[in-house]
């Protein structure tokens, strides 16, 4: 029994932090939201060089053939740094689908970071993220029919960096088994939420130490302390659920779908608590768009309902428990 990350995974996370911490990710996010993806795409390329884009692309297509746990390591950092773009779709969901569809060229493009791809799927992600920027757009019309697709109308999201598009399926390219791929997408989104939640907590703690009111740091107020402590508790207990879901997916355990749903619910709840607390601790400045905090507050609000609402995931958990799947 060893339940935790390996030293290599920790080093991978550190490498991503080095890269992203030095980059102006809020600037990239803001220009991405304004329809100028240049900074975001250059970041995409540099992250691809570190292996992020090809994590789940099989080695025969120049990918890394890595594990779901590695995916959570990467997406947690993407969430922490607020990196814009259809990462979940390109990196977590599409590789396995495109492998089933034998789309060698697109896969190689994803692995190298040359190709950005996006996807729409019923219920979980009905509108495709950033289809205007993506080189390839796909649509699942059921959990088995994979189509190429063309972007249509755009819809605004609470998170302005999420540019959502209706897709029109054009040509079916394969019959696939999409269940695991979609669970990988949900898992990646959960890890992103966890990262975004930690970022909000760290920003709030830093602000609470530095900001003075009534002659002392607001972080010396017990009420502020307790709010932030509760966020830490929620995040610390969501993290092992996310890790476990990745382990279950890797092992193709019968409990995998349920574990993914539990991870999504807990990570979403913890990140939302972090965002509400961040706003309360920051006060009015947290309510402004120009302060970077808003990027994470609005992203968390969007991701809480993305890749399955908490209601859908809770229903899936209950169904699994009642049917006695993979009892402890």
């Amino acid at each position: 029994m060893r339940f935790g990350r390996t030293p290599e995974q920790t080093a991978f996370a550190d490498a991503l932090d080095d890269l992203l911490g030095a980059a102006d990710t809020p600037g990239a996010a803001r220009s991405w939201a304004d329809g100028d993806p240049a900074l975001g795409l250059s970041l995409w390329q540099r992250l691809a060089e570190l292996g992020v884009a090809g994590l789940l692309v099989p080695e025969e297509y120049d990918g890394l053939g890595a594990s779901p746990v590695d995916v959570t390591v990467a997406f947690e950092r993407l969430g922490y740094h607020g990196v814009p773009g259809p990462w979940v779709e390109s990196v977590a969901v599409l590789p396995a689908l495109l492998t089933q569809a034998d789309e060698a060229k697109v896969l190689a493009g994803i692995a190298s970071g040359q190709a950005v791809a996006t996807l729409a799927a019923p219920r979980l992600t009905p509108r495709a993220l950033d289809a205007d920027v993506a080189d390839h757009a796909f649509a699942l019309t059921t959990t088995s029919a994979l189509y190429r697709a063309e972007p249509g109308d755009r819809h605004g999201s609470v998170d302005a960096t999420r540019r959502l598009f209706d897709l029109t399926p054009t040509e079916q390219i394969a019959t696939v088994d999409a269940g695991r791929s979609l669970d990988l997408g949900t898992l990646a989104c959960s890890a992103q939420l966890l990262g975004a939640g930690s970022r909000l907590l760290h920003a709030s703690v830093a602000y609470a130490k530095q900001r003075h009111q009534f002659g002392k740091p607001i972080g010396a107020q017990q009420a502020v302390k307790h709010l932030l402590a509760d966020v830490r508790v929620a995040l610390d207990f969501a993290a092992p659920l996310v890790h476990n879901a990745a382990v279950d997916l890797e092992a193709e355990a019968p409990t995998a779908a349920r574990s993914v749903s539990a991870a999504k619910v807990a990570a979403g709840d913890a990140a939302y608590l972090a965002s509400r607390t961040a706003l309360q601790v920051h006060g009015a400045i947290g309510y402004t768009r120009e302060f970077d905090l808003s990027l994470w507050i609005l992203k968390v609000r969007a991701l809480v309902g993305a890749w399955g609402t908490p209601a859908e995931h809770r229903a899936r958990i209950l169904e699994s428990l009642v049917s006695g799947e993979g009892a402890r």
Partner: protein
Amino acid sequence: MTFDQGTLEFTEAEETFRLEARDWLAANNPGRLPSMDTAEGAAAHRDWERTLASGRWSVVTWPEAYGGRDASLTEWVIFEEEYYLAGAPTRISQNGISLLAPIIFGHGTEEQKERYLRDMTDGTLVWAQAWSEPEAGSDLASLRATATQVEGGWKLNGQKTWSSRAPFADRGFGLFRSDPSAERHRGLTYFLFDLSADGVTVRPIDQLDGTPGFAEIFFDDVFVPDEDVLGGVGDGWKVAMSTAGNERGLSLRSPGRFCAAADRLLDLWQTDPQPHLRDQVVDAWIGAEAYRLYTWGAVTHVEAGGSVGAEGSINKLWWSDLDLSLHETALDLLGADAELEGPCLDDYLFSLSGPIYAGTNQIQRNIVAERILGLPRLG
């Protein structure tokens, strides 16, 4: 032994007033306008204020001489119920009518009343509030912007922030330190100023919803004549506190707002009833109903000669939490579509500001604990 008990039955005059308001609104209400924190929306909202004033509905509690109807507090709440039930627009004149006007009525000179009151009833003069400063936040007593006496008036210097409506308003009001040697609550004076005066720079700040609902205001030797001092020189704190109480109390958020939101939530529920959200929907309705009834209790208390003091903090804690949970529940009902731009999302984003503004809810809880429950202040 027989006791009378309270009743929510209204007098015939009050019922007539309600019907008159309802009919007028039915005929004139334009419904949801573009956000008043955009240039286009600000103009539309000013037009609506003019329309309201033309029907003498913009300031119902004011004396007739100033465009009002001498309405009672009860009638005001009735009007607000009807206003929100009709889904009429938010009020761009709110700062002026609710925050500034009570102070002009209470502390202003006759000349100030003549000069300012009528113009704020019909959208001619829109006012921005300018309380906070970058280092002050909820701690108003630590204000640092200064007023220096000069020939015929004062020069204002410094910076204000979180000034609501400032990007599209005409004038502002706020506290400045007129006695640099005094500390904390002393030596502050309440000033009215022109946002287009020489030396004033307004820098809009975008809110979470993307609109510039507030701004920073920079003052660089801004001249204000003596007649724009409101109340006595050095009395600013006392004068402002009557506004703060007002802002947190009855006049800020009328129950009609929450009842209307609860009704909309119920409609949303009925389009797609999700049993696991039943309790949240019902509790939101109960919360709005409690707020409505609490308000009528407060109106009864005030009309009997009582006052609303620190209880305003209890009120604010309730409505701000209620507003948030109403709109969080609405988003839960919308499910996967919750992230999409639209009125539900706008209202949710607005509700996020509730626990922060007009004194954060941490401050309100301190007030309830110390002033109402009598817990010790130290620590």
